[in-house]
């Protein structure tokens, strides 16, 4: 086989490889260009992102949790560090995500089932010396043992209750 003949397969492999790489470069560049021209998920341009570099934690938290930040505020305001928040099993995926976020963001406050916070009369106080609370994602939702609780907060999205001290 002559050198010229041996050059051809290698040349075609190289052409095909570089064509693919060029195609991906164009794709990546277009993707990045779109990201930079339309701004980030909060609609911020690069200059605005730089300006927000020292944005306080609270503002970042509000971007992240959006409406859920009101639940976060209510928990921090009313539930002490050793509090335990009972959850009624209502709510969709957004509420599930919010609760998972609250577990970390408001730790060491605990989140548990309603039964753990409001046990039946036969059982003793809920979770040792923890203060009991109830969080519902439908403001007018009724739940077993509601008469033993007092409402602390109500909004269109949620309501937060405290188990009355005498009921614990």
């Amino acid at each position: 086989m002559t050198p010229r003949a041996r050059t051809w397969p290698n040349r075609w492999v190289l052409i095909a490889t570089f064509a693919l790489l060029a195609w991906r470069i164009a794709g990546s560049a277009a993707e990045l260009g779109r990201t930079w021209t339309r701004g980030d998920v909060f609609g911020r341009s690069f200059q605005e992102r730089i300006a927000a570099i020292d944005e306080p934690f609270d503002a970042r938290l509000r971007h992240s949790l959006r409406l859920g930040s009101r639940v976060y505020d209510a928990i921090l305001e009313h539930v002490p560090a050793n509090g335990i928040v009972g959850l009624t099993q209502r709510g969709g995926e957004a509420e599930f995500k919010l609760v998972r976020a609250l577990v970390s963001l408001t730790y060491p406050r605990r989140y548990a089932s309603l039964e753990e916070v409001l046990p039946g009369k036969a059982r003793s106080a809920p979770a040792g010396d923890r203060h009991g609370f109830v969080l519902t994602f439908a403001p007018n939702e009724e739940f077993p043992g509601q008469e033993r609780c007092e409402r602390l907060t109500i909004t269109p999205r949620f309501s937060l209750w405290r188990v009355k001290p005498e009921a614990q």
Partner: protein
Amino acid sequence: MTIGIFALLIMLGAPLMLGAGIVRAIGVSSRDGRLAFIGWAWMAGSLALALLIDIALWLELPLRATVIGSAVAAAIVASWWFPRLTRRRERQATIATAAIAPPPDGSRFGRAAFAVAVVFVLFLTFDRSLIANASVVFFGDEMWIWNGKAQALFTAGGFNAALARAAAELRLSHPDYPPLVSHSALWTYLFTGGVNFVEVRLTAQCTVAALLLIAGAALRRRVAPGVAAVLLFLLATTHTLSLATSRCSGDGYVALGFLAALDAWLRFEETGARRWWRWLCVSLAFAVFSKNEGDLYLLALAGGIAVAALFQPPIRVRLKELRGAWVVAPLPLLLIGVQWLANARSGFANDFAGGKHDDSLWKMLPGRLQSSVFTKILGAYWTTMTTTTLPPNDGRPWFTQPSDQNLLMLLALVLALLAPRRTLRGPRCVVAAAVIFSLAGMAVIYVGTPHDVDWHLFFSVDRVLGQIVPAATLLLAQTLNERLHDHRALRLQAFHGDDSGTQPSGP
């Protein structure tokens, strides 16, 4: 941010200083690559820092900036004063390895393109970090695995019963995972006065920058600067690196460990200098301390070296020449042992070892050896490697949506397998074998998963294959360099019309 500029500089500068001292003590200097040296320093510093924090947790020392900071300061001084391990001039390599075609120096345009690419990918990482850090860490693996574990460790103050309780209360997904990422997160807590949900990402983002610097240097060493610029750009825009920058997760860490280990092997193979063997062991230690996939990459690289030693006598000679340098080889295994002990003490077990499920990997494996399972896995591999764009807004709005470049891996594999004999007997043997063994090992894990295979593939295959993409990009660079070299040589021959002259370089 809840952190001042001075604290930020110490938080990121201390691991860098510590790592620079360690890397110099190993015998590697900035003369071996200025770009890569910064990345190596970050790697070594992060690993050393994690080990110091691990010791503090074992001893249940107070996790305060003064305590850990003093230990880190002492370690920095020790690392810079420690007598260089390679004070004696290393014997120059006398054994000829498989011929390696040196990359062309490149045109002025090519060199400028490479410089622009390095600056651009660092800028891209910075911008991705800005976008990501506008939101706090509150969801997904970065919270339920990595930052959550740091939070539990910080609360418990050690590997004790309180850790297991905190892990349960925080609903952690995998408290048994290796600790490097969590310990790096814990390091940031010392500067923010407690658990934080933003600054934890900074160390992970610096790790991605380190990966890009090491990748840039490794690519430039093996291919012309223009081609290196192209590959570096494509690597930086991969989905994996985008995710690794946007989230505090272990994928970027383990990918970096694997890439640095392969690069160290190639440098060892090329020069015979033992410092590269030592650095290889440290890189693998970094990988296994980052994520469990690191164990797989350790095995894959060992397998790759074994295959190369089988087909290439010079590799066997290289390994024999190591002599006393073998002593550092157990370092990754030692760290696996440390991690195992910490899990045993805290009562954590891996789900593949029967931690959460009745069936472990080895119990599940025999019953799952069916063609339908392999078809699923290969199908997922194929889809992952050939998908070039992500679905528009997949519900994870806090990172830029890049094009997916796992195609780089497909290209690397195809080009390497087009010339199998040359791959087996050439300088790319170890990298090619390590990449292929990693993919095969990953498939075995999917076969034996205690989870539903479809579910497991859906949630992880793009991420874990992405960990191999930097290594595959290195393989692609090696293959392209050989082919470009052949092309030039054959064209020259054709031009002179002499078929009996120079043969293409390489085995």
